[in-house]
């Protein structure tokens, strides 16, 4: 018997309409756990670098994590992986909700799609019965609406549905996959789903998920259950309220938005509005939210209430979480009423709430600058909010200028030319980032922005404080019960880290300490993404219930696979290195590893180069950021090093690469 996992994947060929149930190799679980780890392995094996995102040979994987469907609190993430049409590297975007556990209960760990369906279809998985069904009647329907329509036509209210909206159907690079209160939004995976002619996947499962050593496992779960309320009642002092507790930022619960509105940038990540927040605005925004928010809600088996049901009068109900509350509002220089209203339409269209508002603000900046003209924007309203609706409608339909903008700021700027490139200024690896512009370089964030494989800061930051505490007393207080650190030295780094003076940024934490801090934070994300744990209970907040000291016992008692901290760290490193190698094979090089252009005002080119050099070395990569033959072999990834050597990307003596390919050139 297989424990925690089911041991079966579904392989769907959409071109031929074939469905296969395939037993998986338990050896791969021991090497990669599951989720993102095994997704990366499958992508490495099946998608050579010449495959374009919209090729029928690109695959789209919907995966559960290893612990999804077990009683491990918060293990509910679906990990979707494919090639991003925007970055041309591996896209992996994740969503919470109920989909992954339901797939486990139906008896599968992953659903792997290849090929393209000639007509729009959806997949219906009902335990052992799996069928590809016609979805032509769902064409153009909203994502939330589609979920409901499918449940109705299947007469199965308990089915869990993940669906794309019009944006995905039209291969918009910001297209998301929506599922109830959750969405897998980043890197354009909804566009790949649309390209494959797949409107939705509905799942219903009524089978058991087994645990290898039940008594031990439940005791660990109960410890987490006991810790969560204690941690919740003891927010970390000295950090901003939304980051002081557990879960993803509590945007649906809080009303005080002074920090976001005054520290994040408005418009196309340009304008900082110091002094914006006042009593009058707080009162108005509080009313706006209370008028539309009917209930705070959770994902499967999680007590954190990070999401909300939003009912805006006159439009259909939808669900929201996290920072999407403010992205449209701030991009359009508008208010919260507008934010909730346009987010309803955007959610039905199925678009990423990070990138999309920025793309629209970018277009309006180009218009103000005269780079886009009235000829490009025929019929655009004159008011800012009207313009946002107008642009959103055109982008998801790929109409006129919308067709250009639908590729995101980087590719749109290339196409528009005439200096537009300067306006696509807030990207990493061609992907739009949070609207943040800061002063002093933070060495930890520099490395995370540069080297994160997902090009998304929330996917790598987390367990280490974002900034130094003001006083020694605060620092001592913070480290007192900091059991989550892998090593005592991390406490020293916090104790010695000061806002000003010798031990302050950018030279403190030291280069060596910075490498260790980044590596630890990233490792926790890679474990979460392999086991399907929500980062909100693990790698994202300070002092979370899951950490490197209890994870091995969790995984081991659930699966029966022996594991200690060193072995788990090695698996995380293997998965992380495999992702890097996959992207290296697609052209990723050191030159691509830069933070958003003007993210920090004060830059230190020499220090930055040293940081990258040191971090690459720490990771076992060469000066170009390519994993060396030795480090690949040490991670049982000999087949990867052989492939890289054969392609001339890695030379036998591990020197710099002999062949330069850049991702930019690859795109037709």
């Amino acid at each position, binding site marked *: 018997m297989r424990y925690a996992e089911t041991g079966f994947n579904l392989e769907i060929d959409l071109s031929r309409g074939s469905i296969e149930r395939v037993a998986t190799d338990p050896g791969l679980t021991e090497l990669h756990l599951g989720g993102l780890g095994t997704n990366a392995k499958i992508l490495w094996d099946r998608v050579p670098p010449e495959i374009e995102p919209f090729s029928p040979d690109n695959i789209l994987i919907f995966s559960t994590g290893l612990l999804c*469907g*077990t*009683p491990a*609190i918060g293990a509910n993430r679906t990990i979707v992986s494919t090639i991003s049409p925007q970055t041309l590297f591996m896209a992996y975007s994740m969503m919470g909700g*109920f989909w992954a556990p339901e797939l486990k*209960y139906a008896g599968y760990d992953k659903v792997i799609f290849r090929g393209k369906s000639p007509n729009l279809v959806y997949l219906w998985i009902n335990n052992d019965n799996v069928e590809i069904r016609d979805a032509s009647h769902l064409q153009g329907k909203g994502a*939330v609406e589609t979920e*409901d329509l499918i449940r109705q036509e299947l007469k199965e*209210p308990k089915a869990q549905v993940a669906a794309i909206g019009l944006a995905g159907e039209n291969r918009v690079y910001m297209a998301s996959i929506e599922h*109830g*209160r959750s969405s897998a939004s980043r890197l354009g995976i909804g566009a790949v789903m649309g390209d494959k002619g797949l409107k939705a996947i509905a799942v219903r*499962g*009524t*089978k*058991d*998920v*087994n*645990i290898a050593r*039940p*008594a031990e*496992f*439940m005791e660990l779960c109960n410890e987490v*259950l006991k810790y*969560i*309320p204690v941690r919740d009642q003891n927010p970390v002092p000295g950090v901003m309220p939304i980051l002081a507790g557990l879960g993803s930022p509590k945007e649906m619960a809080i009303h005080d938005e002074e920090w976001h509105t005054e520290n994040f940038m408005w418009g196309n990540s340009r304008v900082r509005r110091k002094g914006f927040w006042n009593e009058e605005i707080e009162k108005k925004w509080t009313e706006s939210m209370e008028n539309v928010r*009917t*209930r*705070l*809600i*959770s*994902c*499967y*088996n*999680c*007590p954190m*209430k990070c999401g909300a*049901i939003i*009912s805006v009068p006159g439009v*259909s*109900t939808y*669900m929201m979480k996290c920072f999407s509350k403010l992205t449209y509002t701030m991009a359009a220089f508008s208010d919260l009423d507008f934010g909730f209203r346009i987010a309803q339409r955007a959610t039905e269209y199925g678009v990423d709430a990070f990138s999309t508002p920025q793309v629209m603000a970018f277009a309006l900046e180009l218009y103000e600058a005269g780079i886009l003209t009235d000829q490009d924007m025929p019929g655009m309203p004159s008011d800012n909010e009207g313009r946002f609706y107008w642009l959103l409608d055109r982008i998801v339909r790929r109409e006129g200028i919308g067709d250009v903008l639908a590729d995101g700021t980087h590719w749109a700027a290339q196409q528009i030319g005439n200096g537009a490139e300067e306006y696509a200024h807030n990207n990493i690896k061609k992907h739009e980032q949070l609207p943040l512009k800061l002063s002093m370089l933070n060495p930890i964030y520099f490395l995370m922005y540069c080297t994160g494989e997902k090009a998304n800061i929330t996917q790598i930051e987390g367990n280490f404080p974002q900034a130094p505490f003001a006083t020694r007393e605060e620092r001592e207080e913070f480290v007192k019960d900091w059991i989550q650190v892998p090593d005592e030295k991390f406490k020293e780094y916090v104790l010695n880290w000061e806002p000003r003076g010798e031990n302050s940024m950018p030279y403190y934490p030291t280069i060596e300490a910075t490498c260790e801090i980044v590596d630890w934070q990233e490792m926790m994300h890679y474990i979460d993404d392999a086991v399907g744990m929500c980062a909100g209970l693990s790698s994202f907040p300070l002092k979370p219930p899951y950490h490197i000291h209890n994870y091995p016992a969790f995984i081991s008692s659930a699966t029966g696979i022996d594991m200690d901290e060193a072995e788990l760290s090695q698996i995380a490193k293997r998965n992380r290195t495999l992702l890097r190698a996959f992207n290296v094979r697609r052209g990723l090089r050191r030159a691509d590893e830069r933070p958003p252009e003007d993210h920090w005002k004060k830059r230190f080119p020499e220090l930055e180069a040293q940081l990258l050099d040191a971090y690459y070395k720490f990771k076992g990569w060469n000066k170009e950021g390519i994993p060396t033959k030795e480090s690949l072999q040490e991670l049982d990834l000999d087949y990867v090093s052989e492939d890289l050597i054969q392609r001339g990307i890695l030379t036998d003596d591990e020197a710099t690469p002999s062949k330069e390919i850049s991702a930019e050139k690859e795109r037709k």
Partner: protein
Amino acid sequence: MKGEKKKKIVKAIKVDVDKCNGCRACELVCSAFHATPKYSSNNPARSRIRVIHEPLQDIYVPVFAGEYTAAECTGRDKYVIDGKEYDECAFCRASCPSRDLFKEPDSGLPLKCDMCEEDPPLEEPLCVQWCLHDALTYEEREEEVEEEVEREKLEIGLESLANEYGLDKIIDTVARMSQKG
């Protein structure tokens, strides 16, 4: 026949639908507790508590399994509470032919909440323990119930004879027997 009043402990799970966050941890842990061996597997389809939910209507109702019923109701009601329309079944605890709740998925046999009965007893049923938002809380309340007086064997025997021969005949017979001494 009237008996004496007697006090009895009633175990109750109080359900506050406004506090439900829809996470369904109650379903998961219930099915894990009732697995054999305990916690060796879980499967919400085997759970004796289900959250009836329609997120877009803001409907979340945790219902725990009650009695099996062989037949479904002939008519159905709708309740409108705070502007939300609930099907009568949303509050019904029966394992019933009209729906797939509270039935073993393999055998179809009915499931019923047993308040996680165990020796030694748990402080609270598991679903309550795992509901950190107190949508489910556990209560023990004392209720006065009328106790039926236990009847003696003789009376039960006589009653059945009376049913067969009639009470008059029994009286005659008893009189005759007593005269004979």
